[in-house]
């Protein structure tokens, strides 16, 4: 029997977490924490916002303070990449503090809070973004060209991945599951037959953001793109990956006629990339669009579904994302039939 006056384990945990954040604030910024709240979104990452000494911060950590998943970078490495990007003049949140094991909140870092919108549907529909929306594709091309010119030799050691490796990895995920997916097989065949040249032979591998899409860019009604977020999949690889991923139809949020994130055309995106020193291989970018669509399809059909079925996350949200694989099938067919 539980007594109403006893605290639930969740509440005690939340208080312990708050007191650890408070300790970080006092030791690093010399003031107590206030207004601590969890930001919505981010199934793979937790974000907490708070105020300390009159300034707003965001703490990013792995869910429940666990260690990095096989895909995600160690938080300290992610923070070092953010610092390198900032030094190169790229709009990113400034890292204020990298948490130590003695902080007892898991792998995490603290960054300065930036005002802006990340919810893709709002950016695409709300009237306050009407003025900046037409220039977003241009801004995306610009920021990616800058990013891909960062000197990789000055970075901490990062994982390498390329087209052949990514295709092989997702093919493996698909075939672990016994559920047959003829459209995915068709896409895999097309992608295997149309692999871009090995990036290490044809041009130098670069720093790739790895999750550059509508939803991970922060947009303000005044300045358009104000920050590039969610760096946990950053790696060394093919720059065309970052040009393909934002054009995956699922990231257009109902604006299919505008292939770049639902806000722009590829021409404007590519032109800005070239104007800022980047070199576009259009057939390679196209390859990454199709591979990206397949990856999202396999994430839904296999990874989300098996997490749901195994009970690791049996929530209705997780289960329903599994059924989004059908959207990628129709998109892949349209792409393979050259109708997108």
């Amino acid at each position, binding site marked *: 029997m539980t007594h109403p006056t006893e605290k639930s384990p969740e509440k005690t945990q939340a208080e312990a977490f708050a007191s650890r954040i408070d300790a970080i604030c006092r030791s690093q910024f010399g003031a107590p924490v206030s207004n601590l709240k969890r930001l919505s979104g981010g199934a793979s990452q937790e974000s907490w916002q708070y105020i300390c000494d009159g300034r707003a911060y965001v703490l990013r950590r792995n869910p429940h303070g666990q260690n990095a998943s096989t895909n995600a970078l160690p938080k300290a490495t992610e923070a070092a990449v953010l610092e390198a990007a900032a030094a190169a003049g790229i709009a990113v949140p400034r890292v204020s503090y990298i948490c130590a094991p003695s902080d007892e909140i898991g792998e995490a870092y603290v960054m300065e809070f930036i005002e802006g919108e990340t919810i893709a549907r709002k950016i695409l529909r709300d009237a306050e973004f009407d003025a900046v929306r037409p220039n977003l594709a241009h801004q995306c091309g610009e920021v990616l060209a800058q990013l891909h010119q960062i000197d990789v030799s000055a970075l901490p050691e990062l994982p390498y991945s390329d087209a052949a490796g990514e295709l092989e990895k997702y093919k493996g995920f698909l075939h672990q599951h016994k559920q*047959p997916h*003829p459209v995915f097989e068709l896409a895999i065949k097309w992608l295997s037959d149309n692999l871009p040249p090995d990036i290490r032979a044809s041009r130098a591998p670069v720093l790739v953001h790895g999750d550059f899409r509508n939803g991970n860019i922060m947009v303000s009604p005044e300045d358009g793109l104000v920050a590039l977020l969610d760096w946990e999949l950053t790696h060394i690889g093919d720059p065309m990956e970052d040009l393909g991923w934002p054009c995956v139809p699922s990231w257009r949020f109902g604006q299919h006629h505008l292939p770049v994130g639902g806000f722009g055309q590829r021409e404007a995106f590519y032109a800005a990339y070239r104007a800022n020193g980047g070199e576009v291989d259009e057939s390679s970018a196209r390859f990454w669009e199709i591979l990206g669509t397949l990856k999202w399809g396999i994430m839904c059909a296999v990874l989300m579904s098996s997490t749901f079925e195994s009970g690791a996350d049996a929530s209705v949200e997780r289960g329903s994302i599994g059924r989004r694989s059908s959207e990628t099938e129709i998109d892949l067919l349209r792409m393979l*039939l050259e109708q997108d």
Partner: protein
Amino acid sequence: MQDRPLANDLLAAVRRFLTDTAMPQLQGHAAFSARVAGNVLDILAREMALAPGFQKAETRRLRELLDIAPDTHVDLLELNQQLCAKIASGEMNLTSPGLRDHLIKVSMGKLAIDQPRYQGYKTAQANNWPEEESK
């Protein structure tokens, strides 16, 4: 034969309860989850209505594509596995007679159940892509 009420009427009653009674009393993440749960009930209702016919059509076309003898029993899972093997080996592709049409119809059927409001589905309809058949 199961007794009345019919399953889809019961499902519709749960949907009404969720929309009219539960959702107005929920806030924050619970309200969001309830909206997702409502969408899932809608998927189930469409699946109950459409999937039996869709599966018959899919099975019929697959038997034809794979040239299965009329008296041989092969279930839908196995038919799809055979098709996957032929696509992976390159033996069949989008120019193979009937394959393009088959794959479009199956995917259109999945969308008609999972998310008929998805824009890619509407685009396909606008391009006169065929819907899945119901028998």
